[in-house]
């Protein structure tokens, strides 16, 4: 599936988990990605920001091996996992079976595999739902199962495609904290695709802004942990990113600036037709 990996299985990347070189992708003659270059270090958390239709999900799908029709070179680790906006749990498999879906029983056999799945579920605090059907879970719970399903593979690269986009604001806060804990423990390289500026600043070490298929900005997030939305560095970076994305300060209602889900709502104003 991952072209780059199969062609050059022994590439040593000097600590990089993703190397994308001059990646180009077009749909029906329209270039969605135009010569994108991106390197992600082995334990780096990168947020990929962009408005709808700027190619951020396309890039993620290429890195995840879900799209083979690209030009350029891409190298990704063998162990990688994707979390989508919808949980994409298989409804007719119990939660625990969903978590270990596609994993082959190793030396320990099926029992060991099941134990691994349960351990991953325990990490997202859903061990008691192991025997449940996915359709009985709430949106946040289903997304936590999707996280467990990704984590159980011990990924060297986690690809998150707007994983919290469909969740309510309160659940999203909890998911942010959970994701931070999990990443601190497992240290995978992470690429988080989002259109939520606050989410990007809150979670990422580095923010990459994609505009019309090109990287318009690539900046480190120099805001002290724990990151506070009121922190001047946070506000400055947010304004910079919003500007890059084409949202001017006059577009932003002042009351929304410090609102809980501020970033997201600002975008609804600007981009009401988001997918």
């Amino acid at each position, binding site marked *: *599936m991952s072209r780059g990996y199969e062609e050059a299985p022994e590439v040593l990347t000097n600590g990089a988990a993703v190397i994308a070189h001059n990646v180009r992708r077009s749909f029906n003659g329209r270039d969605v990605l135009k010569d994108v270059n991106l390197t992600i270090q082995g334990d780096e958390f990168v947020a990929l920001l962009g408005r709808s239709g700027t190619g951020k999900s396309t890039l993620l799908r290429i890195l*995840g*091996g*879900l799209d083979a029709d690209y030009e350029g070179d891409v190298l990704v680790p063998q162990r990688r*996992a*994707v979390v*989508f906006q*919808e949980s*994409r749990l*298989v*409804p*007719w*498999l119990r939660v625990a079976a969903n978590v270990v*879906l*596609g*994993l082959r029983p190793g030396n320990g056999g099926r029992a060991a595999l099941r134990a691994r799945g349960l351990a991953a579920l325990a990490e997202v605090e859903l061990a008691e739902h192991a025997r449940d*059907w*996915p*359709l*009985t879970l709430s949106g946040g719970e289903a997304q936590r199962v999707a996280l467990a*399903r990704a984590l159980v*593979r011990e990924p060297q690269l986690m690809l998150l495609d707007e994983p919290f986009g469909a969740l309510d604001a309160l659940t999203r806060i909890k998911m942010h904290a959970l994701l931070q804990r999990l990443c601190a423990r497992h240290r995978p390289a992470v690429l988080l695709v989002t259109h939520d500026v606050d989410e990007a600043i809150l979670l990422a070490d580095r923010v990459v802004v994609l505009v019309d298929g090109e990287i318009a900005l690539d900046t480190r997030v120099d805001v002290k942990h724990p990151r506070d939305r009121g922190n001047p560095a946070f506000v400055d970076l947010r304004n910079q990113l919003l500007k890059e994305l084409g949202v001017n300060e006059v577009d932003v209602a002042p009351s929304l600036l410090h609102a809980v889900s501020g970033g997201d709502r600002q975008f609804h104003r600007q981009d009401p037709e988001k997918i």
Partner: protein
Amino acid sequence: MSVIDLVSRRSTKEDEGSNSIDVITLEHPVSTKRRRRSFRVPRIVRRTVGPLIVVALWQWSCSAGVFTSFEVASPIAVFDAGRELWSQGVLQTNLLVSLRRVAEGLGVGVSIGLFFAVLSGLFRLGEDLVDPVIQAARAVPILGLVPLAIIWFGVGELPKIFLIALGSTFAIYINTFAGIRGVDTKLVEAGQTFGLSRWGLVRRVILPGALPNFLVGLRLALVGSWLIVIVAEEINAQSGIGYLIMQAQTTARTDIMMLGLAIYAILGLCADALVRLLERRLLSWRRGFVGA
């Protein structure tokens, strides 16, 4: 004091105060009847009531002389005929013969339908090769094949099983094919990213996803197979319920003819119950609307 009392008291007070506040009529968002439904008739009882009413009307119309006993036998007469044939051992043997034919024909028909549905559901090439043939064959009236089936397979069991298989296979094919193609591509994609092999994808994602449609097809196939077996047995057979009905015609025994039909009806009900049971067991993961 209930909420209603509170509301009415306050509103009278306000009337006395003669403030010019607009009166707003309040009501419960759902009628209290719908909320306080404590007693529920068991499902099985409710499902039996309809057929019982039909039988009662049937008996009443016979007793009241709407029909002569030659035109329509009453339920009691049909029951007596059943007892008579049972004591002679005729009913059991013929019923078993019919059941066996249906089981065999259905087995063949479901297997074939499933095989081709999977073939054309999974592979575009399979679809292009198989689907037009099946769509054309489906349009041929099966009953028109009866004379040919006799020429091809003689008068034994084979033509009957052939016809029953044919009568059930298309419903299985059409529905299962639609089910396979209806599986959410997002799930397939997720399965792929999580390392499911091609066979694993088929076994864990695609076929279970098509199961609800397959069961719909199975219901239709069951009905179809009973339809065919009676025709097959009336035209050319020395045994079976259809044969019993034909025999009864020559001796003008309306009660036995109607007994045969009643047996088909009861068997149809049983078959449907069986599929319902299967659905409940196999599709317990679903949380769809089950009716008010």
